[in-house]
């Protein structure tokens, strides 16, 4: 096993289009599996994906160990732009990259998945949210790993209503992702017997002050304010809700997409009581703690979130599949065959435990409803979540026949 640090640095340096990676061509071709981590290395989603995903993929490669073939890891920044992502994916696949990993930002994730299908190579999406990746736009050579909009909506929406939060007001980022999250969550709220009292669409990007929207939400007298947004929008919403005393007066906040890395930024004092969902939490059980202990030395000042852990889990399962098929056979068979084999093999790792991959490419595992702890309850660094409930793997994700994936009908 060789991991070329130089090739990684090289890839970082040439994130733009039109560059070549000559060292790849020089490396021995037949016996090397190449994994390309493509994500946001410099923008809004850097902490949620970025170097943490690279570190976790590298951890998986190290733990997989020498199994008779080399594994090479490269990484690059897609700048959250579909055109950059597509150009990079074409270039990587043409130069011998076998699998592209992570690919956050739904627009980029969908675009790169199409390239992988066209080139018959593997794409494992960990970082994107949209459930379209395994729905209308599903692909036979792709897997969607950690989470999706349906699962977030179901876990947070359904469970919050069950806990008594039956009237909702949404603060929604005014673009496709926000609308989808609001719609999906609203459906679950209504299905569970709750009511939607209103919603306000906030301009994206460019909104930093949410006070006006929060007071509108408060005026609706809803028991729950749902944030159908992400990243710094969610962080600002939570901070400003605390400032305006919204939580102290009994209103629950539900962050429909939030990562532990966001909680770290908000701080427990402000974030306490907030409800969200992740499919991985480092302090869930002995094996998640063991995984976290192993990977922390590689992580840049962060604990792994569900995307980071997903990159570890996905890389490990991919490498096991390649070993099972044999490197030469896997390379000759192409992406669709490799993914078929991945679907046929059960997954097992320290981060997510036992799991499976469905025919539509959806990786199945449990989803956790989490509440941010009070400062007094937190006993150590990153001790941030209480687990309120678990949605089992079979129920957490959209039923396979409802996604509209062509692979399922055939």
């Amino acid at each position, binding site marked *: 096993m060789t991991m070329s640090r130089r090739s990684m640095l090289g890839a970082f340096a040439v994130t733009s289009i039109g560059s070549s990676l000559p060292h790849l061509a020089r490396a021995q071709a037949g016996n090397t599996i190449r994994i390309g981590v493509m994500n946001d290395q*410099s*923008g*809004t*989603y*850097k*902490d*949620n994906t*970025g170097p943490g995903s690279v570190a976790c993929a590298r951890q998986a490669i190290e733990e997989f160990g020498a199994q008779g073939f080399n594994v090479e890891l490269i990484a690059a920044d897609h700048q959250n732009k579909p055109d950059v992502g597509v150009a990079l994916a074409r270039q990587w696949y043409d130069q011998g990259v076998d699998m592209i990993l992570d690919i956050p930002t739904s627009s980029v994730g969908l675009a790169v998945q199409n390239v992988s299908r066209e080139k018959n190579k593997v794409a494992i999406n960990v970082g994107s949210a949209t459930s379209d990746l395994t729905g209308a736009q599903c692909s036979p050579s792709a897997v969607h790993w950690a989470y999706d909009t349906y699962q977030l909506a179901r876990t947070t929406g359904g469970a919050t209503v069950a806990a008594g939060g039956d009237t909702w007001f949404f603060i929604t980022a*005014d673009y496709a992702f926000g609308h989808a999250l609001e719609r999906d969550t609203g459906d679950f709220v209504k299905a569970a017997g709750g009511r939607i009292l209103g919603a*306000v*669409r*906030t*301009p994206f*990007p*460019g*909104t*930093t*002050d949410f*006070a*006006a*929207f929060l*007071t*509108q939400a*408060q*005026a609706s007298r809803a028991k729950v304010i749902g944030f159908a947004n992400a*990243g*710094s929008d969610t*962080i*600002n919403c939570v*901070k*400003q809700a605390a*400032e*305006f*005393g*919204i939580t102290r*007066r009994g209103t629950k906040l539900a962050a429909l997409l939030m990562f532990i*890395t*966001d909680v*770290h*930024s*908000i*701080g427990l*004092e*402000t974030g306490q009581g907030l409800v969200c969902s992740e499919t991985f939490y480092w302090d869930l059980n002995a094996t998640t703690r063991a995984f976290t202990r192993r990977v922390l030395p590689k992580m*840049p*000042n*962060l604990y792994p979130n569900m995307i980071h852990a997903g990159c570890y889990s996905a890389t490990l399962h991919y490498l096991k599949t390649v070993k099972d098929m044999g490197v030469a056979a896997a390379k000759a068979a192409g992406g669709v065959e490799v993914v078929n084999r991945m679907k046929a093999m059960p997954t097992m790792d320290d981060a997510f435990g036992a799991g499976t991959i469905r025919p539509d490419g959806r990786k199945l595992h449990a989803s956790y409803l989490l509440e941010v702890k009070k400062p007094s309850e937190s006993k150590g660094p990153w001790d941030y979540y209480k687990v309120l409930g678990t949605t089992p793997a079979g129920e957490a994700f959209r039923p396979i026949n409802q996604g509209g994936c062509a692979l399922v009908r055939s």
Partner: protein
Amino acid sequence: MLDAIEAILGVPAPLLFGQLLLGLINGAFYAMLSLGLAVIFGLLNIINFTHGAQFMMGAFAAWMLLAWAGLGYWWALLLSPLIVGFSGIILEKLFISRLYKLDHLYGLLLTLGLGLIIEGVFRNEFGSSGLPYRIPAELSGAWDLGFMFMPIYRGWVVVAALFFCIATWLIIEKTRLGAYLRAATERAELVQAFGINVPRMITLTYGAGVALAAVAGVLAAPIYSVNPQMGSNLIIVVFAVVVIGGMGSILGSIITGFGLGIVEGLTKVYYPEASATVIFVIMAIVLLARPAGLFGRA
């Protein structure tokens, strides 16, 4: 009475009052930032696109003072503008001072580039998701105004911003120093002939403009996420404020800052989707009707 207002305006009166107040608070930030820009443009003829990054540096300096030196909010309010202002002086000496004889465009490009570099360095160092900064204990809590729940800290922001705006305006319009500054804006070489060190005055003015941005950054730290992109989110809006008020007009930037904050607040009630664009629509209209801005001299 309140019912009558509701009937006329189409939204509950408490909601409307609340939004007017919130608009005023946002306006306080616009006013403080556009004031610094106006001071710098007025005297240096530099369109300071680094301003957003310097606003962000002000917030980060507050965070660093707390995390690394244990110095709280009030120290930050004093020290952060001094530190960031000093960094501005170095920037002016090293780079910006070379561009005074060239077209505005060069200054714009240089400061935009510098801003991007600073933002990138901070993102590399501190990540993108931001750092927590708490409201000081003295200003936490809130008043119940009946029509809304008003955090004490937001009230403080309006008071502090008004203080800094009025102080700056008084210094420039009513003091001897301000008279030198205004004279140097008109005829630098003549002022120099009277024995006044104009280059140093220009350097210090830039430092002061940057320090104003840093003050706004410290004021913003407890409200907004302290993150590297916090300045670039705001700076475009602030430039529109400056253009509407009239480039280089001190009073104009203060009044338009507060005024546009209120307009934006009202938009958030009536048509939230447009709240990010309403300022630019006004800018376009003003540019068509009064190209020099509302308070500018043509």
